[in-house]
């Protein structure tokens, strides 16, 4: 197989540029393999974050030919190699160096979200009882590997930089996992509407499209949360019933 050309972003917070590299691609290689090979052959100082190489740690998130993807799960055979393969860091977060971005904003967001608050234990031994059917829905959300590709592709963060007012798809999934849990008694709807900015989501479904764990983020997490917010704040009949019902 002839060498493949890669255009890889080199630079940091102050700026940078795409640099061209060429390397041999063999059968079965993923993009991360090619980046490692370039690192070994011609760019020893190329910064790239990675860990498991199995699509489970969420470390090697980047944009490959403009699409947010995990480098370790993107096969070279699925990319057109008749033109340069473009690799750049995620756009919604500050650049540290080359392909590495500072995703610490996400951890700060998570700290301010309300925690899991289970009801009192059902049994004297401190354990709970609930049906599997009631947790089926939230188990999908627990597949999240926190790669933050959904945050990266969300235009509210990526283009409009609403990091102060909007927590992004990842944390709506997290909130849905807690809010819909059969044991949880915490009330997050006020936060979802005001501090977390769920109204900013305009349902483009880009987050769902890039999720490497195939979590149906928009349909199963964000829209159901939006509907719960509607129940509380926008549905006049429900509001009236709540007033009457006390």
């Amino acid at each position, binding site marked *: 197989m002839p060498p493949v050309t890669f255009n890889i972003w080199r630079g940091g*917070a102050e*700026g940078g540029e795409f640099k061209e590299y060429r390397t041999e691609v063999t059968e079965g290689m993923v993009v991360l393999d090619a980046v490692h090979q370039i690192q070994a052959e011609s760019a020893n100082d190329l910064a790239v974050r990675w860990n498991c190489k199995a699509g489970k740690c969420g470390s090697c998130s980047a*944009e490959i*030919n*403009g*699409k*947010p993807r995990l480098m370790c799960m993107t096969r070279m055979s699925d990319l*057109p190699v008749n033109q340069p393969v*473009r690799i*750049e*860091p*995620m*756009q*919604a*977060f*500050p*650049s540290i160096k080359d392909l590495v*971005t*500072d995703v610490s*904003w996400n951890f700060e*967001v998570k700290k*301010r979200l309300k925690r899991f608050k289970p009801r009192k234990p059902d049994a004297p031994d401190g354990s709970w009882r*609930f*049906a599997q*059917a*009631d947790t089926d829905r939230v188990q999908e959300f627990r597949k999240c590997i926190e790669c933050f590709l959904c945050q990266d*592709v969300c*235009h*509210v963060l*990526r*283009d*409009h*930089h609403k*990091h*102060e007012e909007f927590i992004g798809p990842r944390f709506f999934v997290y909130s849905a996992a807690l809010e819909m*849990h*059969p044991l949880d008694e915490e009330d997050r709807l006020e936060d979802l509407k005001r501090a977390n*900015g769920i*109204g*900013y*989501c*305009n*349902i*483009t*479904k*880009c987050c769902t*499209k*890039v999720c490497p764990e195939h979590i149906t983020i*928009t*349909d199963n997490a964000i*829209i*159901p949360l*939006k*509907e*719960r*917010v*509607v*129940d509380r704040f*926008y*549905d006049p009949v429900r509001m009236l019933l709540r007033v009457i019902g006390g």
Partner: protein
Amino acid sequence: MSSIQLFRPRAFGETSRRDIWWIQPLAVFLGFSAFIVYSTWAAFQNAHYTFGPYLSPFYSPEIFGDSHHALFGPKPGWWPGWLPFSPAFLILWAPAGFRFTCYYYRGAYYKAFWADPPNCAVGEPRKSYWGENSFPLIMQNIHRYFFYLAFAFIVILAYDAWKGMWFEDPATGATSFGIGIGTLVLIVNVLLLGSYTLGCHSLRHLVGGRFDHLSARPGRMKAYHCVSCLNRKHMLWAWLSLFWVGFTDVYVRLCSMGIWTDWRIL
């Protein structure tokens, strides 16, 4: 929380994507535009909306009008003379509102008509953004009320399909059971609209999604799973039903104009 320094801003349409990213929003733009133009034209016609037992879904229910389907007779006297009249004007706002506030359509037309964003990971034309957080788009939260109306329309259109099976003999005036191509068109129309309407995200929430303990409500759990099943293909049902409701009007219109013949099967 301190603000964060971002990578670099992108201009409108700027992207590193290599695929033909603009084809999807363009197709949506053309599809929706074609339907809006046709349905508006058809609503203004106030003619050729019935043929035999068939009534165009754009005019059903015919609250006031000149055909034998009209519930309360012809155009009311209080209708302002300067205002054009069509039975379609009285009802089309309801299904239009249902589609306009539908979660699928919202995402689709924000991209196709407002480039917000033009497509995933493609630069936008505007810097300001309010989303559905403030007026006017905060009004999208009224969707469930349009669902209630849309559901009533499904019942009415099902009744229209039933009436489309009873043909009047022009000689004797007697009605008898029959099935024409138009009957099938009306039946498919109600099936597709039903599949779209009953897969609504708001309905999914109302029947069961709002409960965390669905296992304690077996009936609701079943309903939730049924709605979820339709909801998984909501986009498909949205497009099929949109196309077919337009085609149903075309069918009735062309039969009424004598351009198409409604072949009887039974």
